[in-house]
């Protein structure tokens, strides 16, 4: 990555007090992304990826405790005061949530939800804001944008709603867009359209983007770099082509194998990853993935592997028995 990072997440940890004990949702994660780049964060449900995105936005639940630094555009968001943080959000830092049915306010019109963001951050007057809203809706591919302004979210289809959410996110020309499972709640046929839309807008605006998903297939070919998360930690990180061709972490291998392939023979069993994600209130002493890993051995259960560099640049992984390397030999 050339030049200074736009967003740099340094040693971020998120702890949630629960009745059953402390829950470490995010465990010392480091990430960075440069302007105009795309980072994919992949992991199963409960691996902490959504908590991480909330941590970046400083939108954690009240009881959560955050440690570490989140440097965005030169400022540490963790220490920033509320008013300046508020001005950043929606303007330089934007978000698209997973389910547009719940992320759009059901009793306000689409127009209101678009215009209020424009008026808040860009201080446009009513007429200018309305014109801009119509432009935005057209840009995200919504037909008859003038009529849509007066409509309510429930009057639109799921794909349309997500386009509106994207329009809202893009409205103030953000430098970074975080898309948290943007296509999970949508039909498969719509998913590709939405992802293409995001990619197109990103190129057009030279915007950095973080795509959070549980589906490795979503990030293939659409991201510059991928970070794989498991049990609150980043377990492998690499430029996208390297990740797919030279993956090291057995978990990454298993994730890739779990994607159904269109050219597989009929009735090929899907190799699902056996077992379940660990209980975050009872962290394991050793590697969190070891109970489900087919390569695990004694060391994996005693010690937690740390992220180490692989031979290719920008590639890191945390594993004692990485793939493609004979056991015991240095990476």
């Amino acid at each position, binding site marked *: 990555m050339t030049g200074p990072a736009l967003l740099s997440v340094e040693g971020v940890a998120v702890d949630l007090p629960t009745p059953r004990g402390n829950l470490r949702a995010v465990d010392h994660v480091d990430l960075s992304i440069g302007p105009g780049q795309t980072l994919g964060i992949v992991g199963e449900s409960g691996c902490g990826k959504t908590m991480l995105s909330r941590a970046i936005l400083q939108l954690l639940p009240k009881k959560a405790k955050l440690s570490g630094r989140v440097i965005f555009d030169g400022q540490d968001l963790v220490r920033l005061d509320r008013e300046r943080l508020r*001005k950043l959000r929606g303007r330089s830092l934007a*978000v698209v*949530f997973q389910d547009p049915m719940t992320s759009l306010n059901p009793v*306000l019109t689409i127009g209101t939800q678009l215009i209020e*963001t424009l008026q*808040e951050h860009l201080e446009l007057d009513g007429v200018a804001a309305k014109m801009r809203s119509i432009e935005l809706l057209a840009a995200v591919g919504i037909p008859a944008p003038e009529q849509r302004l007066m409509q309510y979210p429930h009057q639109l289809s799921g794909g349309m709603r997500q386009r509106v959410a994207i329009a*809202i996110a893009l409205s103030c020309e953000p430098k970074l867009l975080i898309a948290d499972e943007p296509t999970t709640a949508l039909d498969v046929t719509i998913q590709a359209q939405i992802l293409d839309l995001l990619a197109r807008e990103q190129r057009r605006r030279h915007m950095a983007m973080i795509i959070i998903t549980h589906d490795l297939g979503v990030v293939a070919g659409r991201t510059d770099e991928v970070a794989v998360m498991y049990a609150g930690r980043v377990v492998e990180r690499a430029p996208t082509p390297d990740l797919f061709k030279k993956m090291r972490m057995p978990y990454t291998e298993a994730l890739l194998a779990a994607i159904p392939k269109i050219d597989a023979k009929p009735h090929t069993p899907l190799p699902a990853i056996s077992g379940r994600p660990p209980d975050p209130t009872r962290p394991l002493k050793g590697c969190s993935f070891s109970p489900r890993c087919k390569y695990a051995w004694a060391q994996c259960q005693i010690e937690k592997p740390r992220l180490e560099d692989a031979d290719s640049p920008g590639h890191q992984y945390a594993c004692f028995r990485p793939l493609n390397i004979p056991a015991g030999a240095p990476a």
Partner: protein
Amino acid sequence: MLGFVAQRLLYLVPVLLAVSLLTFLIASLLPGDLAYTILGDQATPEKVAALRHDMGLDQPIWWRYLSWLGNVLQGDFGRSFRTGQTVLQAVAERLPVSLELMLLAQLGALTIGIPLAIACAVRNGSAFDRFMTGSAFSMLSVPAFLSAILLIYLFAVELRWLPATGYIPFHEDPVGNLRCFLLPALTLALGEWPVLMRVLRSDMIQTLQEDYIAMARAKGLKPSRILLVHALKPSSLTLVTVTGINIGRLIGGTVIVESIFALPGIGRLLLSAIFTRDLIILQGVVLIVALGYVLINFVVDLLYAVLDPRIRHGHA
């Protein structure tokens, strides 16, 4: 939207008819001969019989109901034999007083209840929240006449700031008028605010946990806008229902307060009609009050549709 309104209106008709029937039956079946009461000590069997015939009291009950209903539909609710006023005249005189009282009371309750509800919802679980909810609960155990006594004692007897009783019409002296209504309206408001506050608080707490509120925060909107526009509107449904039901209840439910503070409203009209056995007034006024209540519920239903567009389009 029009279809919705028409549908609701259709439902109203049988209810209104039933209400009119019940009113008439109650008034007619109460013991005590009306003619006898009117004549008082001038009653002789012949005079009673004559008056009964005049008033149509010797007809079968269904005939009397239909003729009364017929009159009502033409706007003739009857005439009081005591005062000579028609029912409509008496109501027209007293209604503004009761309405002013109700409106001020409801306004007071909302003014106390809404900000408290929002403050508690935002500080959910804090000591402030628990204290306010506890106070609201305790207030529900303080009936209107107790609040009235307390307020009268504090403001009229001890501090002497406000009059304990009396009524000055608005057009004569607006300030004096409001001074007369302050204590009575406050009495009723103290009884109403706990319900409003708890209902709104409960809805707001749920709304604040919704994704679209997190989204609003992620958009960097001002906290005041998030609270008042994004959170308040979807949480208002139950509040509007309760307010509507309260307004309906307050009609005629102002009896106690009007009596204590000597306000010449509908409530006192009913009380005096009961005392003087003025059946015609009683019948007519009860019908009007019941009608008002049914209509208010109807309006509340409509308001629902305005507040939640999903109901309007048949989605909810």
